[in-house]
């Protein structure tokens, strides 16, 4: 992986709320979301996150039935996919793309990988919990964070440390 990341651009329209319920407010909110999607799809900003969204769709298809790993894995539920999708949407546009996967317990995973000993994995549960683990050379960091629509700063910091190595 060759990402060089020094800081995340504070540009995220993923959780746009207009604070109003009028037609105008809804229109503005829709336009902002559309703009955000176009940025994601562009080659200059957030293209990687766009690829991760595609991967998430593939994982959903592959893991919708149980035993998808040959060892009795739980299916990835719609609830988990919804949480995972919201999690992806919440990233700043400059975030390097994770690779997307699933774990045998039915959680969706996002991995930022530099080497086997410099890597971060974040699991998204159907309840919207984020379970993460990172190897940073000899250092280990792991824990859980609730997901309330914003990516926890602790996870953004870990991504930065993994990909900028």
């Amino acid at each position, binding site marked *: 992986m060759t990402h060089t990341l020094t800081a995340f651009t504070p540009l995220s329209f993923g959780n746009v709320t207009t604070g109003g319920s009028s037609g105008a407010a809804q229109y503005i909110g829709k336009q902002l979301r559309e703009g955000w999607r176009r940025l994601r799809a562009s080659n200059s900003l957030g293209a990687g996150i766009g690829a991760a969204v595609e991967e998430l769709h593939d994982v959903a298809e592959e893991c919708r039935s149980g035993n998808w790993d040959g*060892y009795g894995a739980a299916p990835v539920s719609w609830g988990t996919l919804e949480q995972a999708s919201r999690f992806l949407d919440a990233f700043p546009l400059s975030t390097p793309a994770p*690779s997307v*996967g*699933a*774990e045998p317990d039915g959680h969706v995973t996002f991995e930022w*990988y530099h080497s086997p000993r410099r890597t971060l994995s974040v699991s998204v549960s159907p309840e919207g919990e984020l379970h993460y683990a*990172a190897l940073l050379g000899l250092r280990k960091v792991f824990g859980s964070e609730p997901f309330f629509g914003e990516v926890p700063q602790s996870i953004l910091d870990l991504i930065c440390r993994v990909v900028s190595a």
Partner: protein
Amino acid sequence: MTERSEPDRVTDEERLARFIVRGRWIRSDQTVRPDAFIPHPHPDLSVTRHKNLSEQELWRVGEGVADAVAKALHGRADVRASAVRRYRLEVEPKPVRDNPNHACIVGWPVEKPAQKIIAQQIVAECKFVRGSVPAA
């Protein structure tokens, strides 16, 4: 399921195989994602001991795992028992009818983050072997 009586203890030097039927669990640099080593159903993680198996016999076991779910066998992640025990896990022989070398890695913590960090460290010591059943 038929079980043998008193299976022998797994030694530290023994190699264990976790068969991979998910292409997404293999990274582009031919290492394995930790997702493959998350125990489910908790608390057991199924593996196959290499002990006394030829390479061909070992792949046959893997083909059985893949055939059971009608998927392709992408390869296997090999790890020594000593690497597993380093994280306070244990390897228990659990022979089954179709696989007398079946074993389970047990002793996993209940907390998901703790499982994940152990899985990451184990896969860092795994060797991925891409393969298929050699001709007889």
